């Protein structure tokens, strides 16, 4: 096995809120290999959103190191982070985050726009990405003309279009009914089988249990890291709501 795709070491992110330091993430370490499908699971307040922002290069850590595909993320400038997000990461958000006025096709093209690819080429690539998620016949619809599941598929196509090394999904089924959510999870399974590395951030142990590997967070620290089914069932020493 070569170098891991993601390597984080004692990563911490502290916020100061009203003069008090909040340790949202307090020394987290793990590696993720290319081709893995990992769930990051934890209750609200566990630090999983903070971790997701750090992994997505949307935020920088207070201390610790993060290597993504050979790049030391902590040392990068704002513009370099933007380029890294553009090339290495495909985002899938709970609320889809599609541009409301743009067609599905234009939404999917967006990452390629910031890569400076010609209009013709990016159109062709985006069409292919939409077809690969089964939306070949919905390309010119706007988000408000699509169902929730279709919207999330558009978002997945957008995440895939730039051929990133990592798909980062934040509660991708959170806004979907259970049947549609199930379809999306199955789509993730397919994508993983095709070699895509997927990190799925969720608060649902049931969802985490279906991933080959899960990392459970609690109070900004790693509570457990191992096969999804085992880790998802872990109960923290100070679990809330007992």
């Amino acid at each position: 096995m070569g170098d891991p795709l993601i390597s984080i070491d004692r990563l911490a992110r502290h916020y100061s809120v009203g003069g008090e330091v909040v340790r949202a993430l307090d020394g987290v370490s793990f590696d993720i290999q290319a081709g893995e499908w990992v769930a990051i699971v934890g209750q609200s307040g566990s630090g999983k959103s903070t971790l997701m922002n750090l992994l997505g290069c949307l935020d920088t850590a207070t201390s610790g190191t993060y290597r993504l595909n050979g790049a030391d993320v902590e040392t990068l400038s704002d513009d370099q982070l933007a380029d890294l997000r553009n090339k290495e990461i495909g985002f899938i958000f709970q609320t889809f985050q599609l541009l409301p006025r743009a067609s599905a096709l234009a939404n999917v093209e967006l990452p390629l726009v910031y890569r400076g690819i010609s209009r013709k080429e990016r159109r062709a690539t985006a069409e292919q990405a939409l077809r690969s998620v089964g939306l070949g016949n919905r390309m010119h619809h706007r988000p408000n003309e699509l169902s929730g599941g279709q919207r999330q598929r558009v978002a997945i196509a957008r995440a895939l279009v730039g051929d990133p090394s990592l798909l980062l999904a934040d509660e991708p089924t959170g806004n979907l009914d259970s049947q549609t959510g199930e379809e999306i999870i199955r789509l993730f399974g397919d994508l993983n089988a095709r070699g895509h590395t997927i990190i799925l951030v969720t608060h649902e142990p049931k969802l985490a249990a279906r991933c080959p590997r899960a990392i459970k967070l609690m109070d900004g620290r790693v509570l457990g890291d191992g096969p999804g089914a085992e880790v998802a069932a872990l109960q923290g020493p100070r679990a809330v709501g007992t």
Partner: protein
Amino acid sequence: MTQLLDNIGMALGTLRANPLRSLLTLLGIVIGAGTVVAMMSLTEGLREKVTTDFAMLGPGTFQVQKFPAPGSFARRDWRKYEQRRPLTRDQGEGVRGLPHVKLVSIEEYPNRPEVVSTREKKTKQNVDVGGVLPDYLEANGVTIAEGRFITDGDVELGRRVVVLGPDVADLLFPGRSPLGEEVRLRGTPFEVIGVGERQGSVLGLKSKDGWAVMPWTSYEIAFGRNANNNVAIVATSPADIQKAIDEVVTTLRRLRGLSPGDENDFDYFTNESATETLDQLIAMIGAATFGVCALALLVGGIGIMNIMLVSVTERTREIGVRKALGARRRRILIQFLFEAVTLSALGGLFGVLLGAGLAVGAREVFSVPASVPAWAVLLSLFTACGAGLLFGIYPAARASRLDPVEAMRTE
């Protein structure tokens, strides 16, 4: 290139999404740019008109007289000029034959407009009457439409003949030739020998065609002698006009017995110098207009800034998504700047069309002089774009600095 097209596409997309709002925002710029173009067109038209309408002399001609040029600010000091000695006929004859002087037209006028009458009809008291020499024709740029002008023989013999301006001829002899007919001036009968070509009016207000001239010898029979004369001098060529002026001034100073230290006790002007003060006045109007328009554009620019700030707030989420997907700060900045400039350029364009339309409309409907100068159009467009750029910077910078995580969280 791709990026440019993308930016234009995005900017137009925003306009399409909020057409009414965009239009209202643009009004400031539209009005600003429109006023610039309309006012500049009107002043430009006025300027052109002034130069042609106030041209009372022929080419290469200047006029010497006791009083300063008509329209000159110096005329306020009336008493000073009143007290000057008259410019006599002999002095006028004295400049004839100077090296660069071709013709000398000595003209004698009464103090106010006169009435010209026939047995059946008469004009109002608004006819400019003069006692002149044959040189009058060329010096004043008059051409004869019908009949002939005054000759040396008419002057020598004191013939009671008159040449009428077309307004006078049309009024007294509607629909027929006045040649050979008799008109009366202060009771003295004159025979009409010619009619001048129509010259139009000064700024559409005062007709230039209400005149009647006769040999000065017979003029003095009807009106008595006026010791003071206007002397119009035609230089040997338009290029020699300054030399001719120098010669005439030197000669007149000598003839009028002025010492080297004395100031001239007469004035002279060319067509150019006569319209100079008017030109200055028009330039002042232009400058004032420009100030007003700068204010309008400022207001328009603030409108642009306002709407861009609204747009940034409304699209915070979109900006967050774009940044998350890899848009650099500069890219967001340029996108919003582009939008501001597109918006204001569009406003400028509407404004130019509106302004030019108003100016041309005013010309066609009210026959106000107007001509749309290309530089005013360019100036309006540039300043409109400039206002968009200037006032777009702050909102665009604000958009570019948004934190993507925060931005995507807003509803």
